[in-house]
């Protein structure tokens, strides 16, 4: 199975460990990734706040590049996933948008016929490969590990192509099949604040606090995310939460590909484990010969 890979900008910076673990896990699962050559930023939530059609056009450049490659386009960032999907839908359904964007692409000798499928890697791992085929490759079951899978928003909203917009279950099912204990985590699809954590940190920090409290109250040792922004928000602002609320949170948050890699028996370095801001050592070392 081969897919065209669109990493997105975060994966070149704060979410570098996500990129490293994505590539390692895909290799271990015989899932071929061909990075879209010379992709550009999807525009995220910011570009469309200033310009609408331009935002669709720059996003469509990526779809045009991916179309040449023929395979489904896989991204791991829910913001990219939503923007690319939205553009894709409008390029198919809204004649006026399609017309202008196509003209703009033509200026750069590109064209897009609307044939690309935009997918999230979680969807591909669970629905294209499937738990039955993953399980024989597992060398390290995650028995006893208490996790809170955190989905955030845009992986299932607004498009909800592979999971429920209100109560997603894909990561829950994946990791419980690998032995992990998925704790009750009712806030799993609530918002982390997204960009507001940067622009309005004093207000945004309340959202982070409620997520951390929910995970801790339900005895989670680890939060597992499928979004670069959720991950950094949950990790980077724990100290701020602790200062503001006089709490004592120290819950590591890692990417779902990192935890899947642990179960696949991949070494820490290949998964970029150890590059968290809140160390996952205490939680994950038991799988690497350490004591619990």
């Amino acid at each position: 199975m081969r897919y065209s890979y669109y990493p997105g900008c975060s994966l070149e910076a704060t979410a570098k460990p996500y990129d490293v673990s994505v590539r390692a896990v895909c290799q271990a699962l015989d899932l071929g990734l061909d990075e879209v050559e010379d992709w550009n930023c999807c525009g995220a939530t910011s570009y469309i706040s200033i310009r609408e059609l331009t935002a669709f056009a720059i996003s469509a450049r990526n779809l045009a590049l991916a179309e040449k490659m023929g395979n489904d386009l896989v991204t791991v960032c829910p913001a990219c996933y939503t923007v690319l999907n939205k553009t894709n839908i409008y390029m198919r359904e809204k004649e006026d948008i399609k017309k202008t964007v196509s003209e703009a692409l033509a200026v750069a000798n590109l064209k897009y016929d609307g044939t690309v499928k935009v997918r999230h890697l979680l969807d591909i791992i669970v629905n294209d490969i499937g738990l039955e085929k993953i399980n024989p490759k597992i060398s390290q079951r995650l028995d006893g590990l208490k996790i809170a899978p955190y989905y955030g928003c845009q992986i299932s909203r607004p498009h909800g192509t592979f999971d429920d917009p209100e109560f997603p279950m894909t990561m829950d099912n994946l990791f419980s099949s690998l032995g992990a204990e998925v704790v009750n985590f009712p806030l799993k699809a609530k918002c982390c604040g997204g960009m507001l954590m940067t622009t309005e940190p004093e207000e945004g920090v309340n959202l982070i606090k409620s997520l951390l409290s929910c995970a801790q109250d339900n005895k989670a040792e680890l939060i597992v995310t499928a979004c670069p922004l959720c991950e950094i928000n949950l990790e980077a602002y724990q100290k701020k939460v602790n200062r503001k609320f006089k709490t004592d949170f120290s819950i590591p948050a890692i990417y779902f590909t990192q935890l899947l890699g642990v179960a696949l028996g991949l070494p820490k370095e290949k998964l970029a484990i150890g590059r968290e801001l809140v160390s996952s050592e205490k939680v994950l070392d038991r799988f690497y010969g350490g004591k619990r």
Partner: protein
Amino acid sequence: MIKTREKLQETFLEDIYSIPDGEKLKTCIQCGTCSASCPTSHLMDYTPRQIISAFRAGMLDRVLKSNTVWMCASCYYCTVRCPSGIKLTDIMYELKRLGIKYHLYPPKNASPVMARIFVDTLNQFGRSAETVLLSLFFLKTKPFKILNYVPMGWKLFTKGRISISNKTIKGKDDLVKIIEYIEKKGVA
């Protein structure tokens, strides 16, 4: 300025109805599901439901100068839950765009600044270059607080999670052509 403002007042409703599926806004039943679902409505000057109502009454300033649209975190709960199928998150984006275009946004809010810097950075590099983006943002909005972010930045750096060099994509000229084509057509 006054002239553009008058023009906006005239076209305010039509502007919103012109975005994809924007006309559905006419079917709002004021049930408040959007406000109840919104994770940031308690931080807003007016809740999403109130904003729709004010919008339909043509209350330009109330809609655009309140912090409401800029407090939207794009979580899309309202969009998936609205019984009338209104894509409120997309409408918030259009209101943000109108606010920027006509300089009608809350002056102290940092989000419009972030959006502007994001667009400039993307136009310059083809990618969003987090380091440049955040440095510019903090310099512009809270230069005195920049020191507070040094420890986190340093830790990210030691973990190899900050990229120092910003690559410009090879197809930048093409990207610029695409952007310019649409801007010239005046339909951005």
